[in-house]
Structures are given as structure tokens and as C-alpha cells.
């Protein structure tokens, strides 16, 4: 009880912070607009809860949200393959409100395609 009450102290600290959009679930992405992008990985995050890459395509850099690292590892996409400078093709859907963000259904690196959902 007292421990829980102590958490109460966190609330005033949390309130007043500018909201930042989270990227979870698929509902935030418009599946009616499938995109296929091929480019160069400029930044790779093999991180929980979802991995990501910044993919440079002609004239634009997309933030591509991938799958949880454990799933990517299990499906044959270890951290070493998701390296900066590698060429990658992603198929996925653009975010409904965040420009330049998309969630990938699958990713192809060095000829190997990994399903991410």
C-alpha cells in the first residue's frame, strides 16, 4: 500500500510533458496504401519493443518500424544483418499521421526475406 502510494509522487512529474506518439500496433498504419521501398540503412535499432531502421530512399529518409528483436532473431534476421550501409527492401504501410514513418510487413536484406508480423 505505502509503496503504491509512493508511485503517486510520480504523477505530477509525468503530467505536463508533451505527448510523443508511440508506434505500437498496426491500427495506426494505413494498410490500404502498401508501400515497397528500397534504400540504404542509415541507422539501425535492434531494440525492444520493436526494432527500426532509418531507410534512405531517393529524396527521403523513412523511419521503418520492424518487429520485436526476439522475433527477428528467431526468423533469421540477427542484429548483425541489420547493419548501417546495407541495402534493404521493405514492404509495409505508412503511418496515418506521422509523415515519413512506416511499419514493415516484411524486409529483404541480401536476398533473404523475413516476415515481420
Amino acid at each position, binding site marked *: 500500500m505505502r509503496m*503504491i502510494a509512493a508511485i*503517486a509522487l510520480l504523477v505530477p512529474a*509525468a503530467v505536463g510533458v508533451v505527448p510523443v506518439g508511440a508506434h505500437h500496433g498496426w491500427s495506426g498504419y494505413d494498410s490500404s496504401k502498401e508501400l515497397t521501398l528500397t534504400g540504404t540503412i542509415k541507422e539501425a535499432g535492434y531494440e*525492444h519493443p520493436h526494432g*527500426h531502421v532509418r531507410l534512405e530512399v531517393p529524396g527521403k529518409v523513412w523511419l521503418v518500424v520492424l518487429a520485436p528483436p526476439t522475433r527477428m*532473431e528467431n526468423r533469421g534476421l540477427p542484429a548483425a544483418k541489420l547493419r548501417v550501409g546495407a541495402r534493404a527492401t521493405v514492404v509495409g504501410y505508412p503511418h496515418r499521421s506521422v509523415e515519413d514513418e512506416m511499419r514493415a510487413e516484411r524486409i529483404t536484406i541480401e536476398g533473404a526475406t523475413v516476415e515481420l508480423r
Partner: protein
Amino acid sequence: MTPAGGVGWLTSLESTAAATAMRQSLWLYPIVEILHIIGFVVLVGSAAMFDLRLLGLSRQLPVTGMERHLLPWARASALLIVPTGGLMFVAHATEFAGNPAFRLKLILLVAAALNAAAFHFRPFRQVAEWDQGARAPLAARFAAGLSLVLWTGVIACGRLLAYF
């Protein structure tokens, strides 16, 4: 990913070793999630079983006996819940702090704690009068109903914060 332009103390939380390990270690994050769930299953399960007794179910069981059995477990569960929740928070502090579902969760958590404290300081003081085989007073039943609603809300917000 760590959003840019966060508030100072939040971004410094995100750069701690614990936060980095949470994001980058392959299995730490899911293990912490599992421990968090085990913890709140015990906490909310204890609270719900106690609340149902106050609402009139299993009236043959003494309220004081249930309280002696369940409250220590509820307290101990905080040892699992709080550190694991803290680890998940620091991993994405800026994102969590701005997440409306997370904010509502904290508010409901505080409300649930205050409700439980109010119950212990008010109607529970006279528990001897309605300990067994009797209807609990309205204040106790109200606290029990409110507790069920608040804890349901805490769990719902905890799950939904991944979708906001």
C-alpha cells in the same frame, strides 16, 4: 527508438545502463514483462478476491482472515511490480511520460491506493461488527466496488498504452 527532444530527466533516464539493457538485450524486456504480469496478477487477484468478499460473496469466511491472508501477498507483489514497471518506464521514459494511457494508469493507480487506504482507516476499523456471516456496511461495499473498477482500469490502461 528514443524520441528526440525529450525532457532532460526523461532522456537521462533513457541513457542509463538499465534502460539501454532493456532495449538492447534480447530477452531482458520480455522477462521483465512476465515478472510484471506475475506481480500484478497477485496484487489485483488479491484485491479482487477481497472485494468480492466485501460485496457479500462467501460470507461464511471471516473478513479479517481473508485480510490476513491476502494483504501480505498484495504487499509482497509490489516488490515484483514496482522495479519491473520502473525498468519498462526508463527504457522509453519520454514516450511513456507523454502517453495518455500511461498517465491515466498512474492516476487510477493512485486512486486505487487511496481507496484502499481509506477503506483501512474507515470501515475496516469496525470490522469486528461484520466480520463473518453479516453484510458489510455500505462504505465497505462501495470501496470494494470502486476497487474492482479502478484495478480493471489500471490493467486496461497498462495494456492499452502500447496502442497509443
